[in-house]
């Protein structure tokens, strides 16, 4: 086996803590003992490989999964998956899920009294192309209340799950919308200390992927952990 070239440690302030009191549920679900920091091994720098055979083209259009069209504003979400070295992450699985346009999930535990939409399930998936690009068609999700604190509302968001090329690149994140007035009040958003890192989770309006007379485009690029540079061979 070749020498293991590991993945970089996170840049300070760019990842949430496990214990973040403003998000109340973290209190009983965060480790209290220090995490153990082992060297990275072949078990972590490998990971499951999913390919184009694991998804259907229709999986990436959430507006075409039922007989009728879902209620709401159609949007196109595109972007690239890169690593910290700026290299594209090709052929990697992306899974998304979201509320419908009224802010309701078709889930047995979602008791919000907003209407369900029989034409919207809110789940999609796709695999990035050779340049790390992806594209989903969906409807803009609604905001919804939750019980974290008095008058708590989640900003509109889409959940993203990515595998990358190693188990150490595994990531679940959320995409937000530009100008959402709820963002500063949302502990999911504020849990990321570094402002630039926080704003990376906000998509940008994208005129070029906007489809005339059909759907607004939003661009959301995702950066996965990148490799340490290959150690230099011994100097002469």
């Amino acid at each position, binding site marked *: *086996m070749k020498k*293991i070239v*590991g*993945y970089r440690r*996170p*840049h300070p302030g*760019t*990842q*949430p*803590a496990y214990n*973040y009191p403003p*998000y109340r*549920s*973290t209190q*009983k*679900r*965060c*480790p*209290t003992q220090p*995490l153990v*920091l*082992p060297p*990275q*091994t*072949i*078990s*972590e*720098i490998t*990971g*499951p*490989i999913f390919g184009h055979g694991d998804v259907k083209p229709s999986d990436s259009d959430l507006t075409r999964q039922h007989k009728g069209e879902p209620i709401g504003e159609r949007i196109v979400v595109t972007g690239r998956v890169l690593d*910290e*070295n*700026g290299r594209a992450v090709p052929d990697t699985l992306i*899974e*998304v*899920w979201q509320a419908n346009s009224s802010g309701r*999930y078709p*889930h047995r*535990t979602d008791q919000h009294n907003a209407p369900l939409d029989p034409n919207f399930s*809110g*789940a*999609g*998936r796709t695999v990035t192309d050779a340049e790390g690009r992806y594209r989903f068609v969906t409807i803009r999700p609604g905001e919804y209340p939750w019980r974290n604190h008095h008058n708590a509302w989640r900003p509109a968001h889409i*959940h993203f*799950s990515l595998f990358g090329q190693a*188990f150490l690149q*595994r*990531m*679940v*994140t*959320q995409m937000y919308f530009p100008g959402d007035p709820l963002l500063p009040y949302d502990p*999911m958003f504020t*849990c*990321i200390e*570094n402002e630039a*890192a926080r704003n*990376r*989770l906000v998509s940008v309006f994208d005129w070029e992927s906007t489809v005339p007379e059909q759907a607004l485009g939003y661009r959301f690029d995702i950066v*996965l952990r990148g490799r340490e540079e290959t150690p230099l061979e011994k100097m002469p």
Partner: protein
Amino acid sequence: MSLFASGNQTVGPYLHIGLEWLTTRDIAGKGVKGERVAIAGRLIDGDGMGVSDGLIEIWQANAEGKYAHPEDTQKKPIEKGWRGFGRIPTDGKGGFRFTTIKPGRVPGPGGVLQAPHLVVTVFMRGMLRHLMTRIYFPDEAAANAEDPILKLVPAARRATLMPKKKGKTLEWNVALQGKNETVFFDY
């Protein structure tokens, strides 16, 4: 070029909507070589309550100790169709159960072989970024004793990575807090 990675966010309470399609409770299909094992347990929060909105994922080598991944360049056989990935959402009481084969030993740091193990990721509402841990095997005492990763774990906490044999099942719980808090790794 130097970017920093995007921030992780919680899967939230409705994770099943997006993630359930890939549920894999039987990691090793028919025709896969190796010793069959069933592993079951619960995800438990700081109040001792089962986490009903959680999910674990498993990544493992085959019985020969080879990963289905291009960076595993060991000259060892691998079954056609072997992936080595499991995804198991918890039930209403925080329980999970899956079957697989015990993996072989894979290379570790310093040229020392690692003991057979499964890599585990843990996701749930109330967790802003997933946790990673490992499952080792109680009947591998000799290999466990020389495992370079287990050696880094305080001896008193190693048992949290070791399932207990209960009949034909290996019982293994993930405790987020408390006396038997599971050891989590940060790579």
